[in-house]
């Protein structure tokens, strides 16, 4: 016989009326937001990995001297503080042909210059003496295609050189740690290297860090969506049980409905993700905006996320109903408080000790992510225990009815109270963590300097004279001097011998000076503070971007789940609220109790996690040998305040619902 579950579920869903539709729409909306955020996270992780791969060709893939068919010298110069990757290529005589680099149709011939579209535009915009004169000036420029670029905004030049050109000579190669990730030279046979550029190498791990921090708030949101409509399901359970339905049929109906709502919402989220891909691609991260294709996660990931959100929502709904099924009078009449055991504290303490012991010394990003995931996991166990104890203490000392009600609610079902605030509490950890993770390695800053590396002091003196002439000719006002190779802090050369020009004026003058001094640099390009700062600034910049995005998304998702949970709580308890109000209990007392029920654990737990986040980041900074940047304190204060206000607003949003469900609950003609 055909199962009646699906037809009955469909029939009941259709006849649930406006309120039923509203709660389903809300649940589907939450599922859509969850799926959307998850897909964006996956896209950011996969996309940043894919585009890092697209920069790998620029790092010379060294081949044995005898086998090399060409010489590749890659370096980095800066214009308006933005990095320009310059790849010089020279085909060696009497060797086999070298394949074309990605983005070009053929290996560049001597004198040919290919520019990425963004660099070509900049070359057109800026005076030649600020940028274009750093490179050879062909009759016309070629274009580096998308295959050779990580982002449409990337600034890349590929220049064909003669084998004897100083730009591909040994002097154009790396000077060791000073040039790490920015300048390298080697004989090559092709472009099959797999080491990503300095400017994209950290992107994926940093995005992954943000994704790990965001997973929990998203899971909480999906679970909150699953709880919506629990009260209606309780009523349905009772009515259907009376009509002869088995518990298994009830669970199947609930699962079918929740799965349908979850799948519809998750699909809508996936569609929104697909439709918004071009918009998402415009959001800059690292080297700039994205090629749309880089952010496409592919059908398997899309299906996995839709399925994951649907399963989460379904499991949450069925779990709620199982509790009701176990006790037919429902959650409102539960006999025993859901106590939490002290083992939660023990596990948390043990995990914390483990984490603290393992944050000594340098941490790989992978290890950091594992430790963060562990911290989140054990905090998920620990949170309800804290809420339980907090409820008991507050219950003992409460003087006002609203505080007493809130305290008893907390200790009555600490897991439910924890769920309401968990998103924001864990977001507090993110806020705390990133507020001090503004790595400041503490190298000296010389923003007015442009320097040229020399072989020795004599060479430096000779180059200094040439540099004065070149700068004078370019109209740059500068004091030119030489530095020895034992001067580690007085110039941007950091222990290399050379010539330093202290330039008066802003970025335009610095760019003019770099361009003017290029002929004196013996095949290398002149360096500025940007070159020296790049390795640390790149990491700091990525972390700042990810932290801002993670914080905003965490707070949004956490606020949405708090709002949903607050609304679900009102609906779950509408009978008791209604009867209390009918007996004269002021609405504001019920409302204050609701707010305190959230604020009490929020203040204690979010305060705690924020402090832990700060401490964790401090440990990380210490491990990296960096000084702590206290400017993040303001960001932290803003985030915590905004998060708390958003949470209160989310709870306040269900106040009209509370008013509506408690107004004359027994108004019938009888």
């Amino acid at each position: 016989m055909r199962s009646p579950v699906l037809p009955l579920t469909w029939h009941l869903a259709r006849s649930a009326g406006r309120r039923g539709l509203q709660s389903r729409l809300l649940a589907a909306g939450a599922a859509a937001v969850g799926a959307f955020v998850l897909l964006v996270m996956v896209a950011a992780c996969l996309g940043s990995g894919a585009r890092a791969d697209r920069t790998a060709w620029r790092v010379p893939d060294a081949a044995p001297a005898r086998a090399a068919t060409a010489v590749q010298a890659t370096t980095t110069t800066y214009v308006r503080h933005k990095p320009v990757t310059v790849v010089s290529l020279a085909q060696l005589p009497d060797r086999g042909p070298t394949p074309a680099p990605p983005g070009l149709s053929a290996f560049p011939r001597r004198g040919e210059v290919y520019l990425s579209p963004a660099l070509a535009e900049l070359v057109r915009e800026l005076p030649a003496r600020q940028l274009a004169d750093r490179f050879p000036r062909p009759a016309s420029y070629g274009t580096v295609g998308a295959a050779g670029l990580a982002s449409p905004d990337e600034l890349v030049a590929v220049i064909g050189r003669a084998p004897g050109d100083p730009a591909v000579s040994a002097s154009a190669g790396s000077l060791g740690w000073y040039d790490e990730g920015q300048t390298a030279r080697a004989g090559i046979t092709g472009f099959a290297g797999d080491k990503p550029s300095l400017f994209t190498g950290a992107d994926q791990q940093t995005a992954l860090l943000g994704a790990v921090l965001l997973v929990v708030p998203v899971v909480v949101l999906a679970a909150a969506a699953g709880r919506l409509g629990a009260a209606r399901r309780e009523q349905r359970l009772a009515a259907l049980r009376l009509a002869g339905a088995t518990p298994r049929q009830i669970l199947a109906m609930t699962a079918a409905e929740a799965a349908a709502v979850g799948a519809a919402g998750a699909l809508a989220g996936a569609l929104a993700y697909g439709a918004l891909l071009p918009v998402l691609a415009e959001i800059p991260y690292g080297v700039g905006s994205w090629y749309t294709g880089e952010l496409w996660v592919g059908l398997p990931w899309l299906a996995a996320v839709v399925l994951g959100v649907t399963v989460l929502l379904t499991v949450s709904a069925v779990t709620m109903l199982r509790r009701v099924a176990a006790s037919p009078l429902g959650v409102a009449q539960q006999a025993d408080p859901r106590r939490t055991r002290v083992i939660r504290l023990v596990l948390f303490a043990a995990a914390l000790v483990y984490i603290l012991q393992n944050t000594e010394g340098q941490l790989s990003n992978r290890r950091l992510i594992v430790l963060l995931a562990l911290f989140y996991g054990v905090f998920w166990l620990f949170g309800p225990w804290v809420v339980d104890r907090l409820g008991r203490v507050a219950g003992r000392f409460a003087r006002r009815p609203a505080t007493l009600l809130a305290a008893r609610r907390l200790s009555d079902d600490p897991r439910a109270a924890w769920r309401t605030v968990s998103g924001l509490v864990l977001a507090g950890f993110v806020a705390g963590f990133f507020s001090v993770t503004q790595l400041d390695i503490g190298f000296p800053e010389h923003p007015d300097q442009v320097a040229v590396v020399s072989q020795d002091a004599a060479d430096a003196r000779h180059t200094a004279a040439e540099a004065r002439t070149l700068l004078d000719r370019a109209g740059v006002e500068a004091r030119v001097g030489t530095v020895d190779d034992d001067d580690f802090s007085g110039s941007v050369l950091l222990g290399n011998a050379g010539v330093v020009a202290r330039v008066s004026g802003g970025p335009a003058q610095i760019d003019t000076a770099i361009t003017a001094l290029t002929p004196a640099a013996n095949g290398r390009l002149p360096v500025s503070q940007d070159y020296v700062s790049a390795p640390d600034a790149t990491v700091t910049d990525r972390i700042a971007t990810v932290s801002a995005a993670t914080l905003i998304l965490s707070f949004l998702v956490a606020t949405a789940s708090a709002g949903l949970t607050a609304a679900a709580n009102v609906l779950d308890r509408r009978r008791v609220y209604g009867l209390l109000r009918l007996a004269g209990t002021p609405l504001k007392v019920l409302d204050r109790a609701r707010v305190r029920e959230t604020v009490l654990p929020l203040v204690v737990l979010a305060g705690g996690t924020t402090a832990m986040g700060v401490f964790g980041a401090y440990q990380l900074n210490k491990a990296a040998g960096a000084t702590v940047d206290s400017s993040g304190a303001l960001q932290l204060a803003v985030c915590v305040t905004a998060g708390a206000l958003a949470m209160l607003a989310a709870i306040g949003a269900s106040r009209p619902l509370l008013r509506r469900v408690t107004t004359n609950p027994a108004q019938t003609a009888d």
Partner: protein
Amino acid sequence: MSIVLAGHGLIKKYGSTTALAGVDVEVAARDSLAIMGPSGSGKSTLLHTLAGIIRPDDGQVLLRGERIDRLGENKLSALRRKRFGFVFQFGQLLPELPAEENVALPLMLEGVPRGQAVARARRWFAPLGLDGLEKRRPGQLSGGQAQRVAIARALVIEPDVVFADEPTGALDQHTSEEVVRLLTSVTREQGAALVMVTHDADVAAHCGRILQVRDGRISSHSQYTVA
């Protein structure tokens, strides 16, 4: 005998349905009135109108001679809190509060310090046969015990009138008998009036008077001498 609560010419309509079609009713202190009638007869509407929960379209509701049907929502809410007690069929107790705090809640809402409120609440447990159940939560009480806690909560503020809406509707016959006997006797001992809606004639028989309501009108009015 002084009239505590009176309704004169009460009319209430829901769209085209007339729930009350000009009802007159009076209740004195220590008086107990059962309102009976078939479903849709208007008995609950009458109780809610007398309790200031519903405003009549016409007519007056007087509490100790003062009109209450034109009071604003806040004043009505305060009046219900301070001078009326309520007992409903079920689900009126907060599940997370122990019984004694459920009873103390109306006092705390009136600003009585928590310690005093709980102490006053506890005094009601022995007379209502709830001794030893003070710390139990509603989920740990039987249906009859929960209703007795609800009666204690209704009486703890020493109200002028106790309104009971099907207070035994969810109980078995034996427990119903026990609960309604307590409700009527304790209310009378407190000097309060009792207005109770019920569909059960045995329950109604515990009241001093019975009003039969049909189609929004009083169809009969019986008076008993309750022992």
